[in-house]
């Protein structure tokens, strides 16, 4: 039996005033897969992430999750279904300790949990020694890892990571890669948005390429056609959608 779709975007567009941030995107994400999403700055990747997470509502089009139309659901309601995400700029509760940040996320009641305890996740993040540290004292990279950990423990079925490698040190990027690789054993779907093309291609099964709000290519990470579009979009700055 082939894995079923967990998320479907059907002709989703988002306009800000007259600007088209996302244009007529169709996308299916399968259960348990890691889907990479790349494209130059301003391609609409972050907007697409917000449309999936529910912090933005599409101007047109529909969003389905597990076969159910969730277009009208709020960010919180979607969290309740198990849709979690991280932000382009990491957001954690800075007055609370790392442990408290994870505890709040662990008990947020988003269905079944992927992790049993805070200690287990901290171990995975490589932050066990900092559990009692206040989040405001963490480095940028540590905050980013913490936010990923919070998304993981909040009981996810779908994880949307927006630029998770940005601002991380070399060691932290490796840690991030090994965390993401380790997730393949859990039945969790991940949308990985990042500007590091090689990083995304090495981790993802399929890769989508966005340019000027459109999804201009989507296929296996090793696919020659996809690689050509990536090259075209990045190197020549062409609008492959026209």
């Amino acid at each position, binding site marked *: 039996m082939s894995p079923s779709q967990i998320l479907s975007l059907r002709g989703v567009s988002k306009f800000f005033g007259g600007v088209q941030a996302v244009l007529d995107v169709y996308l299916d994400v399968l259960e348990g897969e890691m889907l990479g999403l790349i494209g130059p700055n301003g391609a609409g990747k972050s907007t697409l992430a917000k449309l999936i997470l529910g912090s933005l509502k599409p101007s047109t089009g529909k969003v389905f999750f597990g076969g159910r139309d969730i277009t009208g659901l709020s960010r919180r309601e979607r969290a309740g279904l198990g849709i979690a995400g991280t932000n382009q700029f990491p*957001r954690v509760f800075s007055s609370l300790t790392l442990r408290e940040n994870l*505890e*709040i996320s662990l*008990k947020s009641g988003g269905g079944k949990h992927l992790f049993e305890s805070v200690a287990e996740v901290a171990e995975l993040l490589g932050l066990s020694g900092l559990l009692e540290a206040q989040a405001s004292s963490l480095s940028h990279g540590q905050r980013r890892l913490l936010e990923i950990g919070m998304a993981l423990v909040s009981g996810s079925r779908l994880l949307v990571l927006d630029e998770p490698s940005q601002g991380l040190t070399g060691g932290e990027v490796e840690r991030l890669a090994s965390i993401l690789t380790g997730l393949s054993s859990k039945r969790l779907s991940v949308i990985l948005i990042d500007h590091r093309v090689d990083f995304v291609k090495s981790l993802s099964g399929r890769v989508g390429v966005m340019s000027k709000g459109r999804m201009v290519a989507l296929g296996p990470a090793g696919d020659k056609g996809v690689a050509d579009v990536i090259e075209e979009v990045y190197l020549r700055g062409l609008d492959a959608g026209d």
Partner: protein
Amino acid sequence: MNGLARTIVTFSIPAVLACIYPILPEYAKFFLARVMILSVYAYGYAICFQMLGMLSLGHAALFAAGMYGAGLYTIYASPSPLSALLMGVAAALAFSLAMGLLSTRVGGPFLTITTLLAAQALYLVALHFNEITGGEQGIVLGREATLVWPLSPWLGESDSRYLFSLVTLVIAVTGVWALSRSRLGKLFIAVRDDEEKLESLGYNTATLKLLGFALSGVYSGTAGALQALLYSYVGAGYAGILNSVEPVLWVLVGGPLIQVGPLLGCMLVNIIADLARGMLRGHVLIVGLGLVLIAFAAGRLSWAYRLLRRSTGLVS
């Protein structure tokens, strides 16, 4: 500071207040008893402002709801101080739920404006029905309606006032101490730090804010009810705007530690105001100057700066 040290610091001031009681002169007893009641109000305000980041300018209404609820009950229903205390707390709880329902729907400066308007509405209502409430002049309650009365065969008035205030303060401090260690307290702080993020983790932040408002209302109402039942007086002055803004000053003066800050700040501000009463035009001017000074100081106190920024900025 670790948990144990924090606990010791938290309860040290009430412990000192209990120990020095036998050697206090009469005026100090009177003064400190009043300040302890006001500190209960300060703790209530801190739950709303310092924990949840909501800059309310309408808490005088919650204090006054407790005061009128208790005081008017003894006048028009039954001169039984314990049921009057319950009535006061219930009235404050009801009013804080109404105000909370409103404030969980708005953000930034609008929360401040709406709480101010709601409190002013209650103040005007109290003035309008001055035949019942006594208006600005107020009403003096019967002696047998006070909490002090049942103890009068054994204790003098000022002694029993001090005792009641101290016991209430200890309960209030214990409550805030437990809250700040609890999961609910952590969630309140998370609301203050990043409401949107908490919402994105699946929490209903509107409910949390309402709960915080209600808890804050119970504290404020208890203080108001005790004000009526210990000093046998109710008056619309307590519903006025000055009584709403003073706790802001207490909390900011008291410092970042919510377990002791409100008590410390309330004591400090009232001691200064009391000392300066002779020199300047009194209390109001001290509060006014204090607010201007603390606004300047907030630029250097990062916790106060963050708190103010969170509670007055527009959500965009």
